[in-house]
C-alpha cells in the first residue's frame, strides 16, 4: 500500500515538480529577504551589545534543525535511493556538526580561548570551512540529481552508502576541526586583532563564490519543490556570509547578528517544507489506510452477506478436506447446521462410491488446474442422498479449497422421470401399434385368407393410418428426446452418394404413388461426412418425402451432393409451388404445415422439418432452403466433410477413451 503512495503521487519534495504557487512563495521569500539584506548593508558594521547567549542558542538551533533535516533526507534517500539526497543530507549533517564545533571553539563562550584547543583564528576558519562545505554539498546534489540511473523505490535501507556518507562527513568534520584548532599554525590568519582581516575577506569571498555557483546550478535546474527551496536557502546563505563575514567589521555588530539570523533561516527553510511534506504524507497515508480499511470492510461485509444468504452450499476446506467454513444453507441442503460440519471431514458426508472421485478433483485443483466442476452425492442427515453440482478452486496462498455446490437432486430426479416417461411412452405406444399393424398387415397380405375387395380396401386404409400413427409417435418421441438432449448420435464416416441412393430407392414407392420420379443427380460428386447415418437418412427422407408430396404429377425430385472441400452440401429440389412467403420464417418450427390447396392429403405431423433442423444442428451442420430457378424449392443440408471434421472425431474418441 505504501508503495502505491510512492508510485502514484510523487509526493516527495525531491521528485514533486514545483508548481506556480511554490514558485511565487519562494520568490516572495527571496524578494523580502533581499530587501532586508540591502537595507542592512549600510548598518552592517554598527556595533551592538555582546549577547553571549545568542551564539549557543543560534548554534544549537542550527545544529538541531540541520540534524533533523539530515535525518529526514536520509530516510527519503532510503526510499527513493537518489544519491543526490544522500549528498544533500551529508551537507546538512556537515553543517550541523560544524556548527557544534564552531560553538565549542567560540572564544569567550565556554572558555576564554574556546574549547578543543582552539586558537584565535580557529573559530573563523571553522566558519569558513562550514560555509564552504554546504554549497559544495548542494552542488553535489545538483550534479547527482541529473543522473537518471536511480534504482526503483525500495523499503530496504541503502546501508552501505549511508554509512559511507555519514562516516565521510564525520571524518571531514573531525579533520577540519583538528586543522582549524591544532593545525591553526598552518593556516594563514583571517582575523586581525579580533576584527575581519584581509584573509577572512579572501576566504569568505571563496565561500561566496561557491555559494553563488551552487545557486546558479540550482537556478538552471530547479524542477522540484526541493530544488526551489534549496535555491531560497542558497540566497539566504549568500546573505548570511555577506553580512556576517564580508560587510561587517567584527563580532557582535549588526552584520554579525543579521548574517547569523539569515543562517538560521537558511537552516530552517528546507526543514519547514520537509515537515510540511511529512505532515501531508501522513495525512494522505491515513486517508489511504482508512479508504482501504473501508474497502476491506465493505468487501468483507459483501462476502459475509453472500455467504449467509446463498442458496447454494459454500464450503471452505483445508487440503485434507476438513471443513473450515460452511454456509448456513447447509441446513436446507444437507440437514446439518454449519457448526455440525465445521471441523469434520468431507468424507463423513460424501457417499462412499463418490469419495474417490471427489478426492481426485481436490487433488487436481491443488495441482494448479482451473476451476473444477463435478457432481458428488452426499448423505443428508435424514438418510437420503442429495446430489450436488460443485465448482471448486484451490488457493495456494491461503492453502484452502473453496467450493460452491448446487443441489441438483430434484433436477436429476425430474430428468430421470422424464427419461423414464420417454422410455415408457415409447414402449406403451409402440406395443399396441405393433399388434394393430401386425394383425392388419397379415390380414391385408392375404396370409389369413382371401378378402373381399371392400374389406381389403378398408384394411389398406387402416394399415396406412397405422403407419401414419407410428410416424407421429416416432416424431413426437424424437422431438422430446432432442429437446431433452437425450438423442444419441453415433457419428461415423458416411458415404453421401450411397446414402442418397438408398433414400431415393426407399421413397420410390411413395413417389410412384404420387406420379413423381426421384433421381440422384449424375453430376453429384463423391463425398464423405461425419454423421449418424440413420439420423441423416431420417433428415433426407423427410426432405424427399416433402418434395414428393408437394410436386405436381409428372415432375421429378432431384437429389444431389456437392463436395465443397471442407463441407458437403446435399440438395433436394422439387418443382412444386414453392414455400409461401408467410411460412418462410416458420417452416422449421414445430407443427407448421403449409396448407393444402388441392385437397390432396399431405400427411405428416408438422414436426419433420423441426426434427430435421435439430438433427442437422446436432451434427454440426446447417439446413436451409431457397427458391429454385424456374420454380419450386431447393432444400440444402450442409455438413462438414469427414476429413475436415476428422480432428473433432479424434478428440471425441480420445475423450471417450479417457473416460
Amino acid at each position, binding site marked *: 500500500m505504501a508503495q502505491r503512495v510512492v508510485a502514484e503521487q510523487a509526493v516527495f519534495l525531491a521528485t514533486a515538480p514545483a508548481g506556480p504557487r511554490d514558485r511565487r512563495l519562494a520568490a516572495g521569500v527571496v524578494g523580502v529577504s533581499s530587501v532586508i539584506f540591502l537595507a542592512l548593508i549600510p548598518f552592517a558594521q554598527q556595533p551592538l551589545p555582546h549577547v553571549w547567549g545568542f551564539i549557543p542558542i543560534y548554534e544549537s538551533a542550527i545544529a538541531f534543525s540541520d540534524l533533523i533535516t539530515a535525518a529526514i533526507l536520509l530516510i527519503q534517500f532510503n526510499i527513493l535511493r537518489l544519491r543526490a539526497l544522500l549528498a544533500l543530507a551529508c551537507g546538512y549533517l556537515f553543517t550541523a556538526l560544524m556548527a557544534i564545533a564552531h560553538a565549542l571553539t567560540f572564544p569567550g563562550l565556554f572558555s576564554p580561548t574556546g574549547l578543543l584547543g582552539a586558537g584565535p583564528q580557529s573559530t573563523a576558519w571553522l566558519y569558513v570551512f562550514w560555509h564552504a562545505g554546504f554549497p559544495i554539498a548542494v552542488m553535489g546534489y545538483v550534479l547527482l540529481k541529473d543522473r537518471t540511473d536511480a534504482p526503483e523505490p525500495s523499503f530496504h535501507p541503502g546501508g552501505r552508502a549511508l554509512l559511507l556518507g555519514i562516516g565521510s562527513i564525520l571524518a571531514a568534520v573531525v579533520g577540519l576541526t583538528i586543522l582549524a584548532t591544532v593545525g591553526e599554525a598552518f593556516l594563514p590568519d583571517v582575523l586581525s586583532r579580533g576584527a575581519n582581516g584581509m584573509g577572512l575577506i579572501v576566504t569568505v569571498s571563496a565561500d561566496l563564490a561557491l555559494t553563488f555557483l551552487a545557486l546558479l546550478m540550482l537556478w538552471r535546474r530547479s524542477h522540484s519543490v526541493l530544488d526551489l527551496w534549496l535555491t531560497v536557502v542558497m540566497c539566504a546563505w549568500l546573505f548570511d556570509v555577506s553580512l556576517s563575514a564580508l560587510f561587517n567589521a567584527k563580532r557582535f555588530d549588526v552584520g554579525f547578528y543579521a548574517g547569523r539570523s539569515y543562517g538560521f533561516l537558511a537552516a530552517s527553510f528546507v526543514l519547514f517544507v520537509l515537515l510540511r511534506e511529512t505532515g501531508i504524507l501522513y495525512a494522505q497515508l491515513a486517508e489511504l489506510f482508512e479508504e482501504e480499511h473501508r474497502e476491506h470492510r465493505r468487501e468483507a461485509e459483501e462476502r459475509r452477506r453472500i455467504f449467509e444468504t446463498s442458496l447454494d452450499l459454500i464450503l471452505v476446506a483445508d487440503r485434507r478436506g476438513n471443513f473450515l467454513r460452511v454456509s448456513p444453507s447447509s441446513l436446507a441442503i444437507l440437514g446439518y447446521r454449519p457448526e455440525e460440519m465445521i471441523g469434520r471431514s468431507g468424507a463423513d458426508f460424501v457417499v462412499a462410491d463418490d469419495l474417490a472421485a471427489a478426492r481426485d478433483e481436490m487433488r487436481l485443483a491443488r495441482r494448479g488446474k482451473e476451476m473444477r466442476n463435478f457432481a458428488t452425492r452426499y448423505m443428508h442427515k435424514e438418510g437420503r442422498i442429495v446430489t450436488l453440482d460443485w465448482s471448486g478452486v484451490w488457493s495456494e496462498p491461503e492453502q484452502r479449497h473453496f467450493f460452491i455446490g448446487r443441489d441438483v437432486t430434484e433436477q436429476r430426479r425430474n430428468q430421470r422421470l422424464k427419461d423414464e416417461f420417454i422410455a415408457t411412452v415409447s414402449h406403451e405406444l409402440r406395443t399396441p401399434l405393433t399388434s*394393430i399393424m*401386425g394383425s392388419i398387415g*397379415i390380414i391385408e*397380405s392375404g396370409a389369413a385368407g382371401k378378402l373381399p375387395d371392400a374389406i381389403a380396401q378398408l384394411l389398406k386404409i387402416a394399415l396406412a393410418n397405422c403407419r401414419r400413427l407410428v410416424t407421429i409417435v416416432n416424431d413426437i418421441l424424437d422431438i422430446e428426446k432432442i429437446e431433452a438432449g437425450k*438423442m444419441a448420435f453415433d457419428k461415423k464416416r458416411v458415404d453421401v452418394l450411397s446414402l442418397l441412393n438408398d433414400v431415393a430407392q426407399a421413397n420410390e414407392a411413395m413417389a410412384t404413388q404420387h406420379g413423381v420420379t426421384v433421381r440422384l443427380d449424375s453430376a453429384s460428386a463423391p463425398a464423405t461426412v461425419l454423421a*449418424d447415418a440413420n439420423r441423416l437418412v431420417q433428415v433426407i427422407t423427410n426432405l424427399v418425402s416433402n418434395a414428393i408430396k408437394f410436386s405436381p404429377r409428372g415432375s421429378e425430385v432431384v437429389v444431389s451432393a456437392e463436395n465443397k472441400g471442407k463441407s458437403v452440401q446435399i440438395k433436394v429440389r422439387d418443382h412444386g409451388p414453392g414455400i409461401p412467403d408467410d411460412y418462410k420464417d416458420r417452416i422449421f418450427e414445430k407443427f407448421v404445415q403449409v396448407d393444402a390447396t388441392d385437397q390432396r392429403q399431405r400427411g405428416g405431423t408438422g414436426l419433420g422439418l423441426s426434427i430435421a433442423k435439430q438433427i442437422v444442428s446436432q451434427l454440426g451442420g446447417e439446413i436451409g432452403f431457397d427458391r429454385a430457378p424456374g420454380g419450386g424449392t431447393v432444400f440444402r443440408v450442409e455438413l462438414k466433410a469427414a476429413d475436415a471434421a476428422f480432428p473433432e472425431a479424434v478428440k471425441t474418441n480420445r475423450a471417450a477413451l479417457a473416460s
Partner: protein
Amino acid sequence: MNAYRILHIDDDPDIREIVKYSLALDPEIIVKSSDGGMAAVEEAASWSPDAILMDVMMPVIDGPQLLSHLRDDERTACIPVVFLTARAQSREVAHFMSLGAAGVLAKPFDPLTLAKSVRACTEIQRPLA
C-alpha cells in the same frame, strides 16, 4: 426342408400371437412362444431353438437379464438372440449388441418381413449342420 426353430419370448400375448402369424409366413420356421422368466430359459434349454426372438421390456426379468441367464447356461449359451423392442435408438442398439445380441429389430415391425429380418440376423451364427 430344414426346419428353422425360433423361440419367441414376450410378456404381451397379442404380440406373441402376431409374431407367431408373421413368422409362420415362412414355411421353414417353427415358432414356440414363451411369456418370459426362467421358464423361458428352461424352454430354450429343452427345445434347443435355432434362434431366440426376445422382447426387452418385460416384468420380473427383462430382456438383457434373460440374455445373461441364457449365456450362463451352457445348454443355451450359443443360441443367437435377437431383441424385438420398442427402444431401438442407436445407442440402445449398440448397448444390446454389446451384451451379445445377434441383432435388434424395432417395434412396430412389418409382419410380412419379420421372418426374413430374424434370419438375416441369425443365419450367419447358425451352427453348420
